[in-house]
C-alpha cells in the first residue's frame, strides 16, 4: 500500500517549533546516540523522516514520540544542527493538538497571546464566580469555607473533572486507536484470554508504575548521557518531584473530600500537621514547589540542552504549577498565623481558581502528556511480548 503524503505537514510542524529539522539529511546519528532507542522504537530519525516527507498518519501513530524524554544528546550530536530533540518536543506538541478534537490545544500552542488570554480569563471567571457566591470573612480565624462554601468548590471541581475526564478520554481513544492500528494491536491482543490479560496487566504496570511513577528509563538511561550535575538538579528528579507533588496534592484534595463524604471530617475542620491527609498535602506541596522552582530556574538559565529553547506552553505549565503550589503554601502559613490576615481569603480565592484552571486546561496543554505518555508506554511495553508470542 502506497502511503499518500501531505505536503503541508512539515510547515505545520514548524509552527510548533521544529524550525531546523528541514536541515536533516537522514544520517541517523541521532538514533545511534539515543540511549532510549531500540529495535522496537527507532527515533528520532524515523519520526523526522515522517515529518519531512509528510507522513502525517504515521507520525500521529508513533508511540516513539512519547518514549523520548529529551535529554538533548541527539541535538548535541547532529552534524546538521537540525535539533532532533527539539523536533521531538515539537512533534509532541503537534500530537497533543491533533489528538484534541476541540482545537483548543491548537490555539493554546499556536497563538500564545490568545492562549495566555484564555488562561488568564478562565482563572478570572472562576475567581469571579466564587467571589460572587462568597460568604462572610471571619476576622478571628481564617474560616475559608465560610468565605467560599466547600459545596461550591466541590461541585465546581466535580464538574471540571468530568469535562476534563471526557476530553482526556477522547484524546486517549484517538491516540490509542492510531497507535494500536499501526502496531497491529487489537482487542484480542489486549483482552483475549488469560495470557493476553496477564501481558496487558504487566504492560500497564510497566507503563504506569515503573516508567511513569518510577521514571526508570528517564532516571537510568537518559541520565547516562547527561553531563553530571548536582543530584538535586537532576532532570529526572525535578520532574519526578513535580509529578509526585502534583499527584500528592491531587490525592490529598480528593482524600479530604472523601473524608467529608464519609463523615469523618468536614472540609475546613482545623487538624494538626501530622494528620495524614494534611501531611500528604504539605509534603507534596513542598515537592511541587521545589521541583517547579528548579525547573523554572533551569529554563531561565538554559541549563541544559533540553531547555535551551522554551515555548510559551512550557512557561504556562510551569507557572500554573508553581502558582498553585506557592499559593497553597502561603495559605498554609496564613492558617498558622495567630491573627488571621484578611489577605488569606484572597490568596485562597486565587489558589482555588488557579488549581481549577490547571485541571481544566490539562488536556489542552503540555500537561496532557500525563495521559498520552503512559498510553504510549503501555503499547511499548506490550509490543515485545506480543511479537514474542
Amino acid at each position: 500500500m502506497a502511503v499518500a503524503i501531505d505536503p503541508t505537514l512539515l510547515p505545520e510542524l514548524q509552527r510548533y517549533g521544529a524550525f531546523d529539522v528541514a536541515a536533516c539529511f537522514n544520517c541517523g546519528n541521532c538514533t545511534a546516540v539515543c540511549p532510549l532507542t531500540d529495535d522496537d522504537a527507532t527515533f528520532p530519525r524515523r519520526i523526522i523522516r515522517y515529518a519531512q516527507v509528510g507522513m502525517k498518519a504515521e507520525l500521529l501513530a508513533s508511540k516513539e514520540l512519547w518514549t523520548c524524554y529529551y535529554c538533548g544528546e541527539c541535538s548535541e550530536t547532529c552534524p546538521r544542527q537540525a535539533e532532533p530533540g527539539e523536533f521531538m518536543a515539537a512533534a509532541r506538541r503537534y500530537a497533543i493538538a491533533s489528538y484534541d478534537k476541540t482545537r483548543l490545544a491548537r490555539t493554546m500552542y499556536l497563538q500564545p497571546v490568545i492562549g495566555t488570554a484564555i488562561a488568564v480569563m478562565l482563572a478570572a471567571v472562576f475567581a469571579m464566580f466564587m467571589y460572587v457566591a462568597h460568604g462572610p470573612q471571619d476576622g478571628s480565624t481564617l474560616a475559608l469555607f465560610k468565605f467560599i462554601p466547600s459545596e461550591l468548590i466541590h461541585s465546581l471541581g466535580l464538574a471540571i473533572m468530568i469535562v476534563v475526564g471526557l476530553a482526556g478520554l477522547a484524546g486517549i481513544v484517538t491516540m490509542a486507536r492510531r497507535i494500536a492500528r499501526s502496531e497491529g494491536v487489537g482487542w484480542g491482543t489486549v483482552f483475549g484470554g488469560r495470557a493476553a490479560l496477564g501481558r496487558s496487566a504487566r504492560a500497564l504496570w510497566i507503563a504506569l508504575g515503573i516508567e511513569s511513577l518510577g521514571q526508570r528509563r528517564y532516571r537510568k538511561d537518559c541520565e547516562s548521557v547527561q553531563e553530571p550535575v548536582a543530584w538535586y538538579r537532576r532532570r529526572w528528579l525535578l520532574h519526578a518531584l513535580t509529578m509526585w507533588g502534583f499527584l500528592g496534592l491531587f490525592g490529598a484534595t480528593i482524600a479530604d473530600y472523601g473524608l467529608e463524604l464519609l463523615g469523618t471530617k468536614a472540609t475546613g475542620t482545623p487538624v494538626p500537621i501530622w494528620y495524614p491527609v494534611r501531611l500528604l498535602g504539605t509534603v507534596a506541596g513542598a515537592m511541587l514547589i521545589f521541583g517547579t522552582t528548579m525547573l523554572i530556574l533551569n529554563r531561565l538559565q538554559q541549563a541544559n540542552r533540553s531547555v535551551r529553547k522554551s515555548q510559551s506552553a512550557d512557561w504556562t505549565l510551569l507557572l500554573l504549577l508553581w502558582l498553585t503550589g506557592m499559593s497553597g503554601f502561603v495559605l498554609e502559613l496564613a492558617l498558622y498565623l495567630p491573627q488571621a490576615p484578611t489577605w488569606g481569603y484572597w490568596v485562597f480565592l486565587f489558589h482555588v481558581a488557579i488549581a481549577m484552571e490547571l485541571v481544566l486546561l490539562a488536556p489542552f496543554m503540555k500537561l496532557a502528556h500525563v495521559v498520552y505518555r503512559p498510553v504510549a508506554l503501555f503499547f511499548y511495553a506490550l509490543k515485545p511480548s506480543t511479537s514474542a508470542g
Partner: protein
Amino acid sequence: MAERRSKPKNQAATTAAAPATPPEVVLPVLAEKVGVYICHCGGNISDVVDVDKVATEAAGLDGVAVARHIMFMCSDEGQKAIVDDIQALGLDRVVVAACTPKLHEATFRRVLQRGGMNPYLFLPANIREQASWAHPHSPKAATEKASALVRAAVAKAQMLEPLEKVRVAAVHRALVIGGGVAGLRAALDLARQGLGVTLVEKSPFLGGRTTQLHTVFPTEDPARLLVHRLIAEVKAQPNLTILTETEVVALTGYVGDFTVTLKTTPRGVNAELADRQAAIAACPISVANEFDDGISKRRAIYQPYPGSEPDLPAIDWASCTRCGDCVTAAGGRGIDLKSDPIETTIETGAIVVATGFDHYEPRVGEYGYATSPRILTLPQVHRMLDPEGPTGGRLEIDGRVPRSIAMIHCVGSRQIEDVDEPGPDGKLHEYCSRVCCTATLQAANQIRQKYPKTAVYDLYRDIRTYGRDQEPYYVDASKAGVVFMRFANDARPTVELSDGADFPLKVTVTDTLTFGTEIEVPVDLVILSVGVMPRDVTGLIEMTHAPVGADGFLLEVHPKLRPVESAIPGLLLAGTVQAPMDVTESTSAASAAAAKVTALLAGDHVEMEPFVAKVDPSLCDGCGLCLDACRYAGAIAMQEVEIEEGVLEKRAYVNPVACKGCGACVPSCPVSALDVAGWEIDQYKAMIDAITAEPLTAGARS
C-alpha cells in the same frame, strides 16, 4: 623520414623515389654494442625481481656491451650512467628495463640525444608493471620473466634503425568549431597568442547553451552577461574571424596544414533593418522556439533574446516560406530573402572541436513526458525561472504557482539495461551527466526562495555536488526544506495523471530513505532532470576520423595524460563534445585545448613521431590492396614510379604526415612490402625468438 615543407602530394616522396635496385638477400646488420640498464625503482622492482641476476644474464647476451642495475634509472645518476657509457664504450643501442614507457620513454630518448645518439635507438622493457607488480608473490618467476623481457628488448634493439621525426610546415591559424562558451574561450586564448583564428558557429547566434541560463553555478554569475563579456573580448581580437551560420563541409590535410571548406548560409537580415519588431511581427510563421526548449513559439525571422550576439535577427530558412511579409514591413530595407549558401576554403594548422551537447529528450511517456503540460524538463524550467525568459521568471502552470513539485534526477543518464528503456535515439545512456545534480539543486533552491509555500520533492538515485563550491547547493536545499527521496538502482519512480484529484499528478516512489516505504507524492508539476547527450556530429567524425567513445562523445587520447587531444593530430577537444561538463570545466578544457594548439603551432614546423608505415618499393607490385585497408584519408596513395628507363609502374606511397602508424595496411599486403617504422615484423619475430629461447616456469608465463 625527410622533412616536408609543403604538401607531399606536390612533391615526389623520398621513399617512393628511391632508385629501384634488383632484389638481393640482405641479412640484417645487428647492432653489436647494446647497453642494458636494469632499474630497481627504489625497490618497486628489486624487492621482487633479482635485478643482479637479470643484469648478469643480459651481460651474457650476444651484442650486449654492458649491463648494469641502478637504484633509479630516471635519476641523474641513472641518466649519467647511460651518457657516460655511450661516450666511453661507443654504445649503438640502449635498452632500459624499468617502468612503463608511458612514464619515461621520452626521458631516455632525450638521454640518448644528450649522448649524441639518435633517440629512436632507445628501447624500453617494462619489468615493473609486467613483472614485479604483476607477480609480487613469485619472485623467481618474476625474475625469469624480467630476463625474458630484457632478452626480447635486446633482440629488437639490435635491429632498430635511426628514425627522424616527421616535420610539417605549420600554418599559423586555428579553426574553432562551435561558438558556445568553450569555443569562445578557446578562440580568445588562441587569438591572444597571436594565431589567426576562424571561429565558426552553426546557428545564427553566438554564446551557445550558456545563454539559455539565467545564472550559472557555483558563482551565480548572470550567464548571458558572462558570455557577452567573453564575446566582447573575442570580437576585439584583430586576427579573429567569426562566421555564424557556418558549417564545416569538407576537410583534408593533416596537422599543421588542414584545408577546410566552410559553408555559410546568409543571415537574411543586415544592419539596415530599421524596425526589427515590425519585421518579426509581420511573419506569419510560428514554430517551436529552440531557445526556450520548446515552451514558447517564435517566428521564422527571430532573435532569441534582446541584445543577442550578433544583435540582429536572423531568418530560419527551414521554416521561412519566403512570403515577403517581413520585407514589406521593413520597408524593403535590411532583409534579403536570398538564401544560397556560400562556400569558402581556409587553411588551418589545427582544429578545436567545441560543438557542444544536446539535452536528453525523454521518450513520450517516460515519467509521463509529453502527456501533460505539467511534466517539464529542467532546461524548460530554467527558461521559466529566467526573469528575461518567456514567462518573465514566473514558474506558473495555467496561471497558478505549483503548490508541490517533484524533481526527478538521472533522466536519460546512468541508464541500466532491463531497467530503463533506451532513449529516442535507441541507445542506453549509461554514463553520468554530472551537471544535472547541482543544476537541479540550484533550481530547487530558486523555487523554494521564490515560492516559499511550494513544497519541493527531490527524487534521486544518487546525488553528487562534486565541484568546488557546489556542496552548499545541497546544504541550502536541505535547509530550505527540499525533501529528498531516494530510489533504488532497479526501481524508478512513476508519474501518473490523477484527473479530478486535488493535485493533478501523482508520483509514486519507493523511498529508501523512508525505510523502503512506497510513497505517493501529490504534485502540480514534475521536473525531469535530463542528462547531457552527445550532439550528432557524424559529418565531422567522418571527415576527421576522430575516435568516438562507447558513450558517443569524442574520445581523448588519455583522460589524464593527454586529456584534450584527440587521437587525430591537430584535432583538439574543448568542452561537452568530449564529455558532460559544466561551464567551468568546459572553459578549462577550452583553454587547455588552446594551449595545446599554441604549443603545436609555436614553431615553423609541427613535429610528429616517426612510427608510420613505409613501403619497400623493391617488393611492392602496385596491387593497391593497402588503399582499402587504410582508414586515413591521403595516408597511402599510388604513384607512378619509373622502375626502369622509360618504364612507369604504380607503387604504393605513404604520406608520413597523414599516416597514423596504425599498421592496418601491413597485413593487407600480399608481398609484405609494408611495415611500420620502429615496429617492424622482423623485429617482432626476433623478440618472440628471444622470449622462447629459454623455457619459462609456469609462474612466469602469466
